[in-house]
């Protein structure tokens, strides 16, 4: 039902090509996350799917039907905007009811649906407030409520949590995941946030300058990034990349994630001096200046007592080494 197929879609703004020809299939019921650096075209792609922008060429099929020329309202999709885009002059109830009113649904049915959605989202006691009287998380829930009452073929989320503070973000993330589990509807979700991408996605699409770099499950991308771009993009702190002599000639560059570099104060593969050590209590991130290699970041669990200038040794887990060729492709 909620299958979305992009077929050689392109988009240019004037002379600037933002999306080069792009193919993508999103299966029904999947939770797909788009990630990529700022300006890479995530929002544009989402808006193309939504119908808020016309594609320059190519075709979009939603649910088996050609939707390329359909106006947004007829695509059967619902979108949750980064700014929530609530109607500030309407109560929560009317915000949620708005798409149903537009569909000329009868009043009793609307009421029933709104109540149901409000219950799911814990909004029942706020139904008569205006968005201005709600907290950020509640507003976000109203936006989602407005999306779900329409029973769309798919949900589109454009960085829906980026305006919330850290604690709320964790909660809302869980709520959206639960929603997906219970509704089973296709969801496309754009985010900047590592953690959101890794924890929510069935499938992550990594975009770079409008092109798809890799598509796969979170763990797949973490374990087997297909190129340096994806390797650097997934995982935090970023993967250490080492070029030159230390690669041993098998590859142009090798990569090792900070959590896969063992730290020791007396022996190991690489020796270096600590430039910065960040003590978070739960973990310690140590930035080590290794001669002939550059700065490597290593993570130690818990408190690892080193300071600026200390001498430390680093040892990579050999099975966790990534190798890349000169074009950056994984070997």
């Amino acid at each position, binding site marked *: 039902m909620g299958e979305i197929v992009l077929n050689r879609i392109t988009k240019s703004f004037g002379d600037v090509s933002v999306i080069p020809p792009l193919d993508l299939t999103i299966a029904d019921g999947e939770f797909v996350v788009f990630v990529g650096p700022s300006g890479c075209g995530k929002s544009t792609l989402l808006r193309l799917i939504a119908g808020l*922008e016309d594609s320059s060429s190519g075709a979009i099929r939603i649910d088996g039907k050609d939707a390329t020329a359909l106006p947004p309202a007829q695509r059967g999709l619902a979108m949750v905007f980064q700014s929530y885009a609530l109607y500030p002059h309407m109560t929560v109830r009317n915000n949620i009811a708005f798409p149903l009113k537009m569909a000329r649904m009868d009043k009793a049915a609307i009421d029933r649906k709104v109540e149901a959605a409000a219950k799911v989202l814990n909004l029942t006691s706020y139904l008569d407030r205006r968005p201005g009287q709600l907290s950020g998380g509640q507003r976000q829930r109203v936006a989602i409520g407005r999306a779900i009452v329409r029973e769309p073929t798919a949900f589109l989320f454009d960085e829906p949590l980026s305006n919330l503070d850290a604690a709320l973000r964790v909660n809302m993330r869980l709520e959206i995941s639960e929603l997906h589990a219970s509704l089973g509807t296709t969801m496309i979700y754009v985010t900047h946030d590592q953690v959101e991408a890794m924890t929510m996605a069935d499938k992550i699409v990594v975009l770079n300058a409008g092109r798809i770099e890799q598509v796969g499950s979170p763990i797949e991308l973490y374990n087997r990034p297909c190129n340096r771009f994806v390797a650097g993009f997934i995982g935090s702190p970023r993967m250490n990349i080492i070029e030159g002599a230390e690669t041993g000639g098998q590859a142009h560059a090798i990569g090792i994630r900070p959590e896969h570099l063992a730290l020791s104060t007396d022996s190991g593969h690489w020796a270096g001096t600590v430039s910065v050590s960040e003590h978070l209590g739960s973990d310690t991130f140590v930035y080590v200046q290794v001669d002939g290699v550059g700065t490597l970041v290593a993570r130690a669990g818990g408190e690892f007592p080193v300071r600026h200038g200390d001498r430390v040794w680093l040892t990579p887990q050999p099975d966790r080494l990534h190798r890349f060729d000169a074009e950056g492709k994984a070997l």
Partner: protein
Amino acid sequence: MATAHSRAAARLTMAPAVVLLLGWMLIPLAMTLYFSFLRYNLLMPGTEEWIGTLNYQYFLTDPAFFTALGNTLALVGGVLALTVCGGIGLALLLDQPFWGRGIVRLLVIAPFFVMPTVSALVWKNMLMNPVNGLFAAVARGLGLQPFDFLSEAPLSSIVLIVTWQWLPFATLILLTALQSLDRERLEAAEMDGAGAVDRFVHIILPHLARAMTVVTLIQTIFLLSVFAEILVTTNGGPGNATTNITYLVYSLSLLQFDVGGGSAGGIVAVVLANIVAVFLMRMIGRNLDL
């Protein structure tokens, strides 16, 4: 936003306004243009004949024309300078905390609501009249010779009246702009060691540039056609001292009923207004990224 659907809708929604204004501009303008090549005096119907550019020759060689041009510029420039400066001053003042701010604000904006005719009548008769006016009474009370505003300094007096009417507008816009100034920016300047004057010059004034542009644009539109104030107070005189282009065209068309000459004058005024418009739009384009 930009889908084929929305662009089509945009054309549709623009259409009424554009068509109406185009009609409003073009139809009378075409008629005016046509009249401007005729000998056409309302009082002598039946004598209309094509006389080519004669009306333009007369209008442009009329010594009153250059005086009027100068007066127009002086009037617009003078009022703009006074309202912008005064507006900044008033806006700064009204932005400060003091007792009765709401009421003072009401007092300050009041002149904006007064009809031009009424304000001209009131200023001319009740304030500026050198015998029975209030200013004269005050001057006499101070043992001074009353000043005869409208004959000694006619243009300045009109500038004063018009300034009084437009000062509230400038003040309101500038005040809104002032209140939109990020307080943190002023605080940053204060931390940086800028005193009140430095803050005004380096932070507040540049911030108000946009608002000053807007005030200039809107007021110029209205000031170019200042008319009632002149008609009521001085009738363009003494001599041509207060005749602006609008008044000159008026006197041709509606005092002398020389429609042909008035039309030629109207067309010249349109051209001049467009020059001003182009000049203004340039300025706006720079300052007001629409």
